[in-house]
């Protein structure tokens, strides 16, 4: 499972950040290829990403209405080790397909982190945990490098260099 | 023994002054300066600032012991003149603590030094008050009391 793409969607459904990551290459093949920095996904137009984000936001809202009360996750206090819990209790949490997996993490303020990964071969529960940890780390970077930036306006697209740099360090490792 | 203390700001204006006597040897803590000396004290200190500004570039130390003297009217009704000594302490921010004392410093050099160290502590605490700017007059009555308590402890 490798993270291919990250979307950050604000609480009103606007896309504030989107990036594609390169797929990690095996160490044996890395000597021969220099294509490690090219993203694994085809780029769409900027407008398409906005539409995607908006659609997802809508689907998410509908999903949380459709979820039967019995299936909703109870809001039990998280264990002490579990900082930054996902507040995605009743909405769409993951989509598993043969081409990709999609995971959604929601913060307390309604901000959504969404990642697209390569399809998983292991069991789904494990993959969900891994994805959630990854998104939590993205959230941490966001709260440091976006929320502590005096030049960032809440709800607007993220343009900060420091955020982008840290995010790539986190996901790609360089 | 009597003491006159002044804290001089970086612009050579006093930001705190006080007068006190010794508590040792049965003293009651009030100064015994004669009326003439009371009037002269600020002028004596003011004239010694020049000396401080000269020697402050020759030494790294903060405590300047008896760097200046003054021959002036003695205590009470006796008209014999006596020697006054001036000791000082310079903080790293070049605020001067200057003190006139009418006894030779060789007897209580350490206690004067200790007194200045404690005074520095009180001064830095004043400085850490966000409402206090460098060179503001220190009008706090608590500061005044603490200074007098230090005087009682060491002098």
């Amino acid at each position, binding site marked *: 499972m490798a993270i291919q793409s990250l979307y950050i969607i604000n609480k009103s459904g606007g896309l504030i950040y989107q990036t594609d990551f390169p797929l990690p290459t095996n160490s044996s093949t890395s000597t021969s290829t220099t294509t490690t920095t090219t993203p694994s996904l085809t780029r769409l137009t900027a407008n398409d990403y906005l539409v995607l984000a908006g659609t997802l936001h809508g689907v998410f809202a509908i999903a949380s209405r459709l979820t039967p009360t019995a299936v909703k996750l109870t809001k039990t206090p998280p264990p002490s080790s579990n900082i930054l819990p996902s507040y995605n209790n009743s909405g769409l949490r993951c989509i598993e397909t043969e081409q990709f997996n999609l995971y959604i993490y929601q913060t307390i303020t309604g901000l959504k982190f969404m990642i697209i990964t390569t399809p998983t071969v292991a069991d789904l529960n494990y993959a969900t945990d891994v994805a959630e940890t990854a998104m939590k780390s993205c959230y941490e970077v966001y709260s440091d490098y976006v929320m502590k*930036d*005096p030049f960032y306006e809440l709800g607007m697209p993220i343009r900060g260099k*420091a955020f982008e740099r840290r995010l790539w360090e986190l996901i790609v490792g360089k | 023994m009597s003491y006159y203390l002044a804290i001089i700001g970086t612009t050579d204006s006093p930001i705190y002054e006080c*007068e006190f006597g010794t508590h040792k040897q049965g003293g009651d*803590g009030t100064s015994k300066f004669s009326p003439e000396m009371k009037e002269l004290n600020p002028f004596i200190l003011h004239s010694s600032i020049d000396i401080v500004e000269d020697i402050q570039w020759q030494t790294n130390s903060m405590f300047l012991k008896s760097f200046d003297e003054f021959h002036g009217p003695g205590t009470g009704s006796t008209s014999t003149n006596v020697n006054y000594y001036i000791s000082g302490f310079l903080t790293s921010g070049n605020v001067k603590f200057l003190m006139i004392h009418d006894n030779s410093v060789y007897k209580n050099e350490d206690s004067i030094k200790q007194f200045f160290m404690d005074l520095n502590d009180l*001064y830095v*605490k004043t400085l850490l008050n966000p409402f206090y700017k460098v060179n503001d*007059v220190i009008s706090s009555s608590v*500061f005044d*009391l603490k200074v007098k308590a230090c005087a009682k402890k060491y002098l």
Partner: protein
Amino acid sequence: MSQPSDIIQVSNPTQTSTKSALKGGYNPSLGPIQLPTSYQAQLASTASSKRNIYDHSLSRRAPEVNLSSLSYIFNVMIQYSQKNSKGIQELEGKLNTLGYSIGPKVLELITLREGKNAKREIKLVEILQFIHTQVWRTLFGRVADELEKSSEADDEYMITDKQPLMSEFISVPKDMGQLNVNAFVAGIIEGILDVCYFQASVSAHTVETPGCPNRTVFFIKFDRDVIERENLRFHK
């Protein structure tokens, strides 16, 4: 019938107006005044009733501040300064002023905490080294990376910080150009130098190197008089 007690209350001098009359502390228009010891005792009893700044100890072992709290307050300081300024230069000037008043306070605190080793810095290079090591360690928990003398002029020095703490989380937008929020730290340095009689102007510049996108150079330009005095005193 209750009249006598009223009269006694009004004419009882021991309980009225004692508090308002007690006014200790230094007054520059009066000069040093000596209050009677009884007054002082009363003052002490009223003053000691609540804990004040003079009762706190200054020598704490690890005086650390939460980085997030620091970032948020710095955030607000920048936004406030930005709101009140018309351009980049004015913003940097405002940040510099904010830092300037902190300089002398930090300096005195650091020297006090050094205890017996405390000394005044009277040489130009030594005060710069003091800022480079002690001040940096107190403020940011580590020493600054480099301290250099300019090869072009004898009154110019540079302190370099590869990863400045204050701008760690901050990305300056493109339209803000050369803004460096470390102007605040430059103000602190300037405050320290000025109060030590090493008058200088200090500015912060971003000088990027590979791997250190936030690398900041604090450019210190001393007044001509300072250099001349230094030459007269120490290089005869």
